[in-house]
């Protein structure tokens, strides 16, 4: 799984996009039992992440995923896509496994989360996705240095099969490609016609990302920018 590695967009847009992940190596008994029960440590990870204004945060609990996503309210639920509140995620008592995620738009929040994780030494493998310089600076200020880095060398092959750049920027925020290009186009179209707000359109896209690593704040900005650009082009052509 490399699902946060190939997010597309300008450096400026990507600068407002960080994902923090916790995970353990399932075969490592030492990591499973390091400094107490795993579930308590993942719960603490979620509490720390939840305290710094995440756009999204996810816990695996009771055989399901508890998903808080900024802007997602219960009226927007559909099928298995059910919203949780931030309090429900960080207060969950039935944590399973070592995986948790949180998404941020702000480097300062990432610095604070990393600083706290370093101090508390939870023994969880922590991965931060984001623009290199931004993450390196966050590391430096938190007193950390990366252990391993995964660099994206981009996409190769039949590039003509890819959608336009704004659609790609939206769709690649779900690394498992659960967001269809048709849906992304439709959301832009509906925002353009005034039928939806950019924020509501971003939530509809984000719901499809079952890992809950979609950044609705960044997506709303991309949608707004694209609607404005298309209106501008339409005006030029008429």
């Amino acid at each position: 799984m490399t699902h946060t590695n190939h997010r597309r967009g300008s450096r400026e847009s990507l600068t407002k996009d960080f994902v923090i992940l916790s995970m353990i190596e399932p075969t490592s008994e030492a990591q499973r039992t390091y400094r107490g029960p795993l579930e308590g440590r993942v719960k603490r990870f979620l509490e720390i992440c939840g305290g710094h204004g995440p756009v999204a945060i996810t816990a695996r609990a009771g055989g399901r995923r508890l998903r808080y996503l900024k802007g997602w309210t219960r009226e927007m639920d559909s099928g298995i896509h059910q919203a949780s509140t931030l309090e429900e995620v960080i207060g969950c008592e039935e944590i399973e496994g070592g995986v948790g995620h949180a998404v941020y738009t702000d480097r300062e929040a990432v610095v604070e989360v990393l600083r706290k994780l370093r101090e508390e030494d939870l023994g969880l493998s922590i991965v931060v996705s984001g623009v290199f310089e931004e993450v390196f600076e966050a590391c430096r200020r938190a007193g950390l240095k990366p252990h391993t880095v995964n660099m994206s060398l981009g996409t190769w092959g039949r590039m003509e099969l890819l959608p336009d750049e704004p659609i790609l920027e939206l769709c690649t925020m779900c690394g498992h490609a659960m967001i269809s290009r048709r849906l992304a186009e439709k959301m832009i179209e509906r925002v353009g016609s005034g039928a939806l707000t950019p924020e509501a359109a971003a939530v509809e896209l984000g719901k499809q990302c079952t890992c809950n690593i979609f950044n609705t704040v960044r997506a709303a900005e991309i949608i707004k920018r694209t609607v404005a650009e298309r209106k501008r082009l339409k005006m030029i052509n008429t």
Partner: protein
Amino acid sequence: MVYVVRELCVACGKCALYCPVEAITVGEYAFVDQERCVECGTCIRAECPVDALRQPDLKPPRLLRKLFSDPLATFRETEVPGRGTEEMKTNDVTNNVKVGEAGWGVEMGRPGVSTKFTDVEKVTMALARQGVEFLDLNPVTMLIDKKTGMFTEKNPWGISPGEIRALRSLSAIIEFKTPKEKVPEIIKTLMEVSKEVETVFSVGLISRWKDGEPELLPLVRGIPGIRVYPNGKHNMGLGRPGS
């Protein structure tokens, strides 16, 4: 395989809108192109307003489409949900990619295009000729002969190479390691094979951190046609045991 109950379908088009691979077309009723469908489950999760979609339990080889495409499906063999291994996310504990080594993730069909497995095999064969070390516990590795990169019937599902070649998935990640000296040669190989496939693939290069930067960054910086994207993933080294 996912199908539409025609008697129930009202041709609203919702399933087609949510399908990531455009496998659903709508006329008098919705129709699922079974060759294009990768069994990712997105249409089912989109919640048909009249409950006209069905996804019965799948058996190999069709099951593999789902295992490779639906992040909520779990490979029994790896116990990892989704499609690959834990890659570099726990490298601070496993030390799988060491200083002096390059870890690679070539994700066929990504982003959102999907891939035929004939294309997956083209790439694994090209890499096998370079003598790469395919990673165990990766679903693609389980389907190939690691020496030749060709599909083999010696796989956990007991399906034939012909059945594997007929598969399509939203993505299939090929994970392998090489010594760092091989990086330019592997990039050249991938560039060549990228001209032969009918899809796209995204390339990730995993490097240890050394002397204030990713150890492999200087090796790729000057290669013509190669761009290192501004964003990536960083393992923070906080996993402790074994680190």
